[in-house]
């Protein structure tokens, strides 16, 4: 992090007019408090709302060791609702932080975990494991999803780097789109050759938050925590990368190495999310943008806020998914896309107008 110190006091293009250090600190504190509070509120709503009506007083009482919940209600809260809230938070945080990282590392506002082929790769890996009948082997699914995600982004990287133009963000994104289509086609091919597994594959891809328990939480937690930790620690690095390769190099960054660290960490988070929850769209795209637009902050702050707001956002989306048509469920991807697509259009309009 030697180069980081050189950045102190450097005016950063893209960030809003530099506020005084004190004001920046106040803003950081204010937004951090808001984000933590939002996450807390989301968790509380997530715990209180559900297909089954359970008195909030009873839930609070149970959390403090007493209360009037029946055994069945305790089982519902402790084994179904709570792990689902925690998992939704983890997945939301993972997708948001990786979206944030991809956008900065590739300097492209439209980059998200899915555009670059990591999710398609994770889907392919998971499909192969299911088709081979190895889905029950411990860790086989998340491992395959992780390798697939990394392979997807790696391929996109290779494609872009062989272009004479070099690893510009545009060629990377194009590479990512091509790789994503290719891997999705491969995944569809493998799936169609094994139509007996069609339902299991679809069930995996369309998301599994509804069937999750603590097992999935423990599966995802270490990877998501590791990735979030790495990206939080590299938040200055992200800011440098988002300036562009030449500028970053002139500021002392090892562009290729730094970008690799960020991409690996983001892919790790994506893979963990896909492995336990299937493909959930738009979260990685809209949360970092919403944070940037709302706070006007640079990537240094956006990384951390994306984690918190991403967790809160997906917890609330999941609340809608399991209450709107209760006792039925809506696929969570429908909720995130219904909110995400119009937002995407808004971001496009705004970023277009800025040029």
């Amino acid at each position, binding site marked *: 992090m030697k180069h980081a110190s050189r950045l102190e006091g450097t005016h950063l293009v893209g960030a809003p007019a530099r506020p005084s250090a004190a004001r920046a600190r106040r803003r950081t504190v204010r937004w951090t408090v808001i984000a933590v509070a939002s996450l807390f509120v989301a968790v509380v709503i997530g715990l209180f709302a559900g297909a089954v009506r359970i008195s909030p007083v009873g839930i609070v009482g149970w959390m403090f060791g007493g209360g009037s919940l029946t055994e069945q209600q305790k089982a519902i809260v402790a084994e179904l609702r709570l792990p689902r809230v925690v998992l939704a938070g983890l997945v939301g945080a993972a997708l948001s932080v990786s979206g944030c990282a991809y956008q900065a590392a590739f300097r492209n506002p439209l980059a998200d975990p899915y555009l670059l082929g990591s999710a398609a790769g994770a889907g392919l890996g998971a499909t192969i494991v299911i088709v081979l009948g190895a889905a029950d082997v411990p860790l086989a699914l998340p491992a395959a999803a992780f390798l697939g995600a990394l392979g997807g982004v790696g391929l996109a990287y290779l494609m872009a780097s062989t272009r004479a133009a070099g690893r510009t963000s545009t060629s990377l994104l194009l590479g990512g789109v091509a790789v994503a289509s290719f891997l999705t086609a491969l995944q569809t091919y493998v799936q169609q050759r094994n*139509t007996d597994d069609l339902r299991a594959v679809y069930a995996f891809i*369309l998301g599994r938050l509804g069937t999750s328990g603590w097992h999935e939480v423990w599966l995802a937690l270490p990877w998501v925590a590791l990735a979030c930790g790495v990206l939080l620690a590299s938040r200055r690095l992200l800011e440098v990368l988002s300036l562009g390769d030449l500028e970053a190099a002139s500021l002392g960054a090892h562009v290729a190495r730094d970008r690799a660290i960020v991409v690996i960490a983001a892919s790790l988070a994506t893979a963990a999310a896909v492995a336990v929850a299937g493909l959930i769209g738009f979260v990685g795209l809209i949360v970092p943008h919403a944070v940037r637009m709302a706070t006007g902050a640079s990537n240094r702050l956006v990384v951390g806020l994306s984690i918190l707001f991403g967790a809160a956002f997906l917890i609330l989306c999941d609340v809608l998914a399991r209450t709107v048509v209760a006792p039925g469920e809506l696929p969570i991807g429908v909720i995130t896309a219904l909110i995400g697509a119009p937002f995407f259009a808004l971001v496009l309009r705004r970023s277009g107008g800025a040029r």
Partner: protein
Amino acid sequence: MHRFGSVRGLPLLVSLFAAFAVACASSSTSSVAGGSTPTTAAAYPMTIDGANGKVTLDAMPTRIVSMSPTATEMLFAIGAGDQVVAADSYSDYPSEAPTTKLSAYEPNAEAIANYQPDLVIYATDPGDLQSSLDKLKIPALSEPAAATMDDVYAQMEQLGMATGHADEAKTQADALKAKIEGVVDDVGDAGKGMTYYYELDDTYYSVTSDTFIGAVLGELGLKNIADQAKGASSGYPQLSAEYIVQADPDLILLADTKCCAQDAEKVAKRPGWSDLSAVKNGGVVELDDDVASRWGPRIADLLQQVGDSVQAQAGAHAGAQAGG
């Protein structure tokens, strides 16, 4: 543009070739007599009132291609199995069915025509199967998913008529009906007030009583917990795990033992499910996905399996009440 033009012309060329192949084939088929012995001297040419409109058969079909696993089961059940030359990739029952690689999901008229059929039976037409077969002058009969048992009997009899096995089909349909009524009678009032959860896959997709399988199970007097979610979807809602646990159904019917490798042991290990009555009292019933998703004659065996469990559960109830 020139290149695009030639690509666009390709399907036309292909269908021309296919038509040519069929024309050649049909001249040779007349010499190939089917090995079956029809039970009735049916009057051909005949016109059948299919779900896809009037279907005219010039002679007794001896080269049937079945694009529906259910139709395949029915054809063999009514004694028309010898007349089936090819069945789609899912037609895995009975074992003597001529299963091929033909896909019922993405039916390919050309691949079907390759078997020189004089009748094609299908359950779903996802695209232009019917119109393609029309162009190839291959008679096709649609036997879509049944909504009730009466549809099942009617389909069996229609297939019997079309294939020259009308009497046998009637006998088989009546036998099936008697079998179903037998199960319902055996169960009697045991199923009254009993609830069940029917599982389509391990993400808790279920069926309401508006579906065929839901209606059939309803014959036993069971209450379906998914009916609460009727407003959510057209018969196949995804249920919330919380709701299933709260509803605590007497029976858990697993129609995902093949697709998703579920069994009673795995259900017991699901978070929050270990204390469910069905799990504790042996009320988790492992069904055959294939039988459960079709509307063929084996549906009676499935109903028997569920009926037995209903009686066992009723016995356990009575025992528990007497003992406690």
